[in-house]
């Protein structure tokens, strides 16, 4: 086990926090854009809440998010069905597309978002949330981190505002910016690898507590993530 340069973990957690807060700032802009019209007119079936300017956030320089929008809490008793106002950047090219997932419960491809963690946790806790890496099955079909916060109008939860960051984009963005001299793992709240600078630890894997108990962890401010040092043996020369 090599120990990193003093201060290295703090620098990394700081960079990670900065990147995450940057995406949450975008989420807050989406939320604000949703709040005003919702507070004024309420939610009405078939009437979009977000203006076209919101999707332009995806084209803002330095934007890490590949998708964003509003996901509405259904209220069948008021005639409000499942609904998303979500845009995403085409993986091959910069074109924006509206996400139109299958919202019919009788379909094999039903996008049951009210059960998804990114929707359910902000609804239950009233707080912002980050989930992933996960496969957004039946939705975008991509491998993502999703950041959401609740949209609450007059004390009522009306949905979540959110942004998707593709795991590959998150990785390449951070690998360019952090000090990799001492290998580390970035773990989420369920001990899943979000980012790894060790070839032996794969992104998406769950790490057992015994594996990471060895080194001191450094928490990432603002999200339930932490950085842990790992063994840096090469797999190529072993």
């Amino acid at each position: 086990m090599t120990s990193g340069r003093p201060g290295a973990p703090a620098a990394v957690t700081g960079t990670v926090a900065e990147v995450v807060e940057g995406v949450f700032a975008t989420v807050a802009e989406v939320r604000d854009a949703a709040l005003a019209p919702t507070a004024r007119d309420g939610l009405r079936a078939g009437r979009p809440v977000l203006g076209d300017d919101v999707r332009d956030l995806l084209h803002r320089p330095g934007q890490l998010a590949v998708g964003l929008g509003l996901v509405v809490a259904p209220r069948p008793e008021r005639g409000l069905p499942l609904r998303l106002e979500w845009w995403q950047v085409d993986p091959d090219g910069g074109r924006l597309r509206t996400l139109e997932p299958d919202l019919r419960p009788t379909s094999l491809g039903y996008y049951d978002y009210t059960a998804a963690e990114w929707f359910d946790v902000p609804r239950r806790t009233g707080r912002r949330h980050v989930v992933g890496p996960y496969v957004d099955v039946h939705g975008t079909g991509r491998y993502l981190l999703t950041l959401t916060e609740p949209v609450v109008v007059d004390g009522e939860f009306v949905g979540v505002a959110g942004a998707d960051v593709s795991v590959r984009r998150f990785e390449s963005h951070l690998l360019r910016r952090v000090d990799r001299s001492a290998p580390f793992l970035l773990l989420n709240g369920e001990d899943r690898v979000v980012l790894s600078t060790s070839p032996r630890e794969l992104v998406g894997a769950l790490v057992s507590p015994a594996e990471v108990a060895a080194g001191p962890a450094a928490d990432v401010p603002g999200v339930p993530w932490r950085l842990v040092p790992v063994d840096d043996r090469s797999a190529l020369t072993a």
Partner: protein
Amino acid sequence: MQLLSGDARRAVFAPLDDGALRSEAVVRRVGSAIALGLLGDGEQLPAETELATMLNVSTMTLREALAELRGLGLVETRRGRGGGSFVQARDDVLGELADARLAELATTDLRELGDAHGAVASAAARLAASRASRVEIARLRDIVDRLARADSVTGQRRAEGRYYVELAACAQSVRLTMQEMDLHLELGQLPWPPAHAPALLERIVAAHRAVVEAIEVRDPAAARTLTEEHIEARTVWSIELRLRAGGEAVARREVS
């Protein structure tokens, strides 16, 4: 019509590469999409030219396919304003279509399909045992419960399709998830075994429960083996159905 962009839709309208028997391939694809609920009852299909482009077939081929689907009663075409082709989900027709498809296939085709599904699903189960979160495991369990409760063939098919797709998602793999979706569009063209032998539903449910247990206790080898063994049994079931049907139902076409 508004085209859905979910991953399942991508699979339904992906270009066909079957080569020969193109219009039949379109009929089968649409049939299984209806069986799996990916195309809903009353839903409008994309316009002919659009659909032909998506599926990579000529307009002529597509028209032949739509004519056959109309003949089967799975699609209704309305003329005039607001017209177009609309889906009619009919379980009896889907069952007949599946039996006819089975009769066209050789036992080696069924073995190949089972081998491919076994490879994908057992790899997914093994990875899921080390990568699935508690929440995901609970969701798998919930899907299997739904499968056990589903009282229609289509309901059972859809629940089972969701089980395998979710399993692949639990493996944290986009590629395995996509492959599982594609495989289900093919599997959805074949008879659902419990439709012929209802007691098999219990065995399917028990097999999936055993896999979820193995995932829960973090036993990748068991999750993989159980998945593999179950899919091997499924291959045997469909081959038996094929051989049994061989004498009665005359294949509509020679196997190409």
